[in-house]
């Protein structure tokens, strides 16, 4: 105890004063903080520092989390260098609220009745426990859908995302047949979007605008990552079921909580779906143990939503 006090004393006198002294010089306060992937917007703002000095700062950094620049269609096909996105779905927290589904459908112009996220009522055998299982595109490392695409309309990016180019898709639906997770939906009819929306250039990062005769599916929302935010399903879920992050940083978050990915998977015995198929998904599941809600409540919430 005494030793600890001593070390703290020492630390206070030396370390902190030194850092404060450095902190108060007039050099660019952001050099240390700047992430290589963040590019300045070019727009400079003159402002007062907290010490009353006049300084110039790029507007891009006047945010809790800076924006990453948007990219061309070609760069979007390559994805973020050095990242590998991963999702963890905690089955013990899901009660079939479907907020993830409605947020996702809304943001991606998904046709009514279809969904990129499905919440299955699962029961593996008669005497095993039932549970709610949200399922979406697994962004497999060896994606069977990408293997069969005849025109590179669906492709694997270096950040692990399996994306779709709706300007390329010929609508053969081989990928839908190949996907064992039924993650893909098809635009059978004209998408219900405004003409202004339809006139936007297609981006495989937003997966919009939806186009008739092409396939759609979960895209892991790389556009939200660029904005410094989380995918829509993650933020929409009030129970924190979905956790998203970069496997290369070994971290996933659902917003309020942030976990070290490897520890989380180890502690809670995380697993992936249909491991025997060799698809190597990037979506992990935490088993439905120590649940926050009884399974039956999922039916109540679903019924209440229908009534509302």
């Amino acid at each position, binding site marked *: 105890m005494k030793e600890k006090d001593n070390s703290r004393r020492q630390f206070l006198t030396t370390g902190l004063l030194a850092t404060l002294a450095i902190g108060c010089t007039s050099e660019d306060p952001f050099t240390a903080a700047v992430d290589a992937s963040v590019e300045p917007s070019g727009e400079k703002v003159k402002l007062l520092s907290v010490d009353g000095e006049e300084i110039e700062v790029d507007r891009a950094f006047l945010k809790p989390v800076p924006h990453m620049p948007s990219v061309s269609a070609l760069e979007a096909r390559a994805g973020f260098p050095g990242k590998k996105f991963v999702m963890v779905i905690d089955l013990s927290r899901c009660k079939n609220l479907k907020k993830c589904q409605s947020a996702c459908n809304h943001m991606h112009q998904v046709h009514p009745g279809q969904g990129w996220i499905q919440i*299955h009522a699962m029961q593996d055998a008669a005497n095993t426990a039932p549970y709610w299982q949200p399922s979406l595109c697994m962004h497999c490392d060896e994606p069977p859908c990408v*293997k*069969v695409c*005849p025109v*590179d*309309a669906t492709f694997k990016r270096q950040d692990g995302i399996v994306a779709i180019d709706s300007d390329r898709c010929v*609508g053969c639906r081989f990928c839908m047949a190949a996907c064992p997770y039924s993650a893909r939906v*098809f635009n*059978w009819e004209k998408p219900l979007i405004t003409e202004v929306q339809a006139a936007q250039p297609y981006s495989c990062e937003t997966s919009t605008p939806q186009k008739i*005769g092409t396939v759609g599916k979960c895209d892991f929302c790389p556009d939200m990552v660029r904005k410094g935010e989380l995918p829509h399903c993650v933020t929409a879920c009030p129970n924190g079921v979905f956790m998203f992050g970069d496997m290369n940083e070994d971290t996933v978050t659902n917003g309020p909580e942030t976990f070290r990915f490897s520890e989380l998977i180890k502690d809670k015995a995380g697993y992936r779906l249909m491991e025997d198929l060799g698809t190597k998904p990037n979506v992990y599941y935490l088993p439905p143990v120590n649940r926050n809600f009884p399974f039956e409540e999922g039916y109540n919430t679903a019924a209440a939503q229908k009534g509302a």
Partner: protein
Amino acid sequence: MEKEIKLSEAQITADLYPRKFGLPGMLWTSLLIAICLVGAYAYYLQLRDGLGVTALRDYASWGIYISNFVFFVAISLVGSLITAVLRLSNVHWSTPLTRIAEIIAVSGIVFAAIIIIVDMGRPDRFLYVMIHGRLQSPIIWDVVVISTYLVISLLLLYIPLLPDLKIMLQHKEKNIKWLNKVYHFLGSFWVGSKEQFRLSEKAINILAVTIIPVAFCIHTVTSWLFATTYRPGWDSTNFGAYFISGAFLVGAGAVVVAMYVFRKAYHLEKYITDDHFNKMGKIVVLLALLYLYFNINEYLVPAFKMKKFEVEHLEGLFTGHFAGIFWFAIATSMVLPILILLFKSGRKPLPMFIAGLLVVVGAWCKRFLIVTPTMLHPMLPMTDAPEEFMHYFPTWQESAITLGSLAGALLIVTFFTRILPIIPVQETIAEQHETDKDN
């Protein structure tokens, strides 16, 4: 035995020369054209409104278009069976059937290509398959192999046709006027010299050898469109052989039906004899037994294990929703034809015709069963989807387009008989000479 009846060259030529349609012919052709037109209108609707006019939805995302595609590819395989396999095994009786088989093959493969474009969500981007084609995709393999097979089939149809074209050119007054120019363009260089015969014989032999592996490829690759996925009912190493045996069967069945119809319509009893039916009957029975063998493999082995993903699918076929059509297909495409054709009295023209029809109808149902039940048994449950997504029954547009494509294929065969001899004239004459010599 009928071969002993001597036929003069003139008689043969006159008998086998293409003729104007009679009233039944006109009615038949008009009916086919009408069906095609309805199909074309339905396709216009589909082009305008998208694939939403079909009953296809996210689970059953492939339906009767794909079934029909597989059916066409299957039926087109007969060209290689009758022409190549029998030719290489030195079987001569099949000569009068080669052209029937080849034209069925060509029209089948043409409509296989057409129906696959119909199935595309974005037919306007068809060229992307060429521009952005990706060699890893079995679809690209299928595109390549189907176009190859089409070219080879056309050659196999064309080269033996050269002597007959010459005969056609000798009777210009009997032909449809404008077609004479086509005959001239296609065959005016054929003089029938020994060297020309030698070269064409050589070409046909090379073709006969080439078409067999290509034919195996085309149907194996088509089976891989299914077998390269993980789905119950498709995830099978047996699929290529299973598809090929089924294809040979339906092709042979189609040839039997065509033999009967042409014989009746053109009074070709002297050329398509009861003996031909007898021999074709034996082939069909052999092929049906072979297909039965593969079917037992395909269903019994997974049914023995009843793996989790397979259970629902197999139960749906054996006793569930698809049981009716499943047992109908098994009965019509295999069991009944075998029962009919195992007996000599069953290998007479009329029972053969019925057996052939059963085989073809059963084969179409079989293709439906290969596609749809599997699609409706995904590996995760079907959840949160509208009621219509859970079932599949084709809409009228879809059915009209499918029927239209079938009618279109028949129309090609029908028109072919009008403009070119459906039974090789020159080869029949040559064989007649040979039998004369033998006697």
